[in-house]
């Protein structure tokens, strides 16, 4: 089953948060907003696994609660540990 899309206002917050803490790469100035929801879903899963909450792949209440928790500003996934590309689709070479 495909995950249920999140409301637009929350999805922006979630994507920004995932990017800030290293789960998604920074938006490419060329591709702009072309982050696919598959990438976002995977990033959410990684984030949920790291946080020790159920891996639903959607920004459920537990995920949103974590996103709004006070925290350290450093990323959880350090830049050098991000995958360079994924299936040739998400992080294409310039």
């Amino acid at each position, binding site marked *: 089953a495909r995950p249920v899309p999140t409301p637009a206002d929350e999805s922006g917050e979630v994507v920004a948060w995932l990017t800030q*803490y290293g789960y998604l790469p920074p938006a490419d100035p060329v591709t702009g907003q072309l982050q696919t929801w598959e990438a976002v879903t995977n990033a959410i899963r990684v984030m949920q*696994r*790291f*946080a*020790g909450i159920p891996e639903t792949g959607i920004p459920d209440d537990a995920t949103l609660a*974590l996103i*709004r*928790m*006070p*925290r*350290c*500003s*450093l*990323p*959880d996934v*350090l830049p050098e*540990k991000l995958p360079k590309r994924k299936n040739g689709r998400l992080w294409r070479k310039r």
Partner: protein
Amino acid sequence: RKSRGRRSVGLAWTKRNISWKVKTYPREAQLSRETIRALTHYALKVWSEAAPLTFHEVGGPSADISVEFLRLDHQDGYPFDGPGGMVAHAFFPGDPQRAGHVHFDSDEDWTFRSPDDYGTDLFAVAVHEFGHSLGLAHSPSKHSIMRPYYQGPVGDPLQYQLQADDHVDIQRLYGSRVLHSTEKPEASSLLPDPPSLPHDFPALRSEKEFPDRCSSSIDAVAQIRGETFFFKGQYFWRLTHGRHLTSLRPALSAAFWRGLPRSLGKVDAVYERHTDHRILFFSGPLYWVFKDNGVEEGFPRPVTDFGLPQGGVDAAFSRPHDRKTYFFKGGLQWSYDEATGRMDEGSPTHTALRGQLPTPVDDMLSGSDGEVYAFKGRQYWKLERHSLKLETGYPRSIARDWLDCSGELYPPPSAPT
């Protein structure tokens, strides 16, 4: 085991003796500066108890680990966002420009021993951030202090110990701490024990005991072996030749100068006698003579030995170039010839300071190149070395110019001293 391997970023300090300093403090804080420094000390100690690291506080401008309280965008790529959200960050040892920088959001309600929902526990966050400063990344373990989410207070700073995972991770970077029988304690012999944290939040026992160098007047100042010592109550601050404070925290005078009574409330004057480099302490009707930091036999003795009044002196300073020591009491001044061991004829006279400075002065100091300073309250004046006439541009702040208080001084300088 695999997850543990991800925890460190693979870079560590090459040195094991690491200096630290709290560079700036929150503007409107519930916690005093002393509390913040004490919590910093204990947060670092958590790591040094697990790994062969020692941390020491320094007063100079540079430190390996520098702690700052900053707000909003502070130009490091990690802007703060007001209360909540991002509360702190620290840079890894491998960061060429920013290694050792630890930033706390000044807009948080930083607390200590306070209920969970009342604010953000500074000690818990500090232990986490110092983990980054030492090379640890975030951990997925719910019990790790390196979990990225703030999870509330972690308990008593004096009792707190790292969880097993954190213990292993820091030891992967620095090895384990092995105490040899010959190993000396980490603290410098000059420093008193770190301030202890009592349970009666928010008061700290240390705050009651230790004078605050940024707001205190001083009792006496002396130049000894080229270093400058500021005395207040039972404590002193020490400045090296380059006028760098050896520690922001004052040391107990009686612990360093062995033989000075611990019950001594304060000293009136201290100077190094240039004829034999003995160090003389004056307090009320008595004086002590020290060879290095041990008292000579037969002391204390009455100050009347010098021909001084029984009640003691306000200030004293010794000048190598004329081998004289000048004593001050109220509006009077005595000139003592160290070579002959006698008071100069005509002493006492009305002090040359009369009309120039508020009297009595707290103390006077003859600097290494002959300059003379007078200290009163929280201010000091520079005097022309021969005539003792005031130089222009004074008074200036003792705290700012000597005691490394760069921030806003309190009470404000306009307040009566």
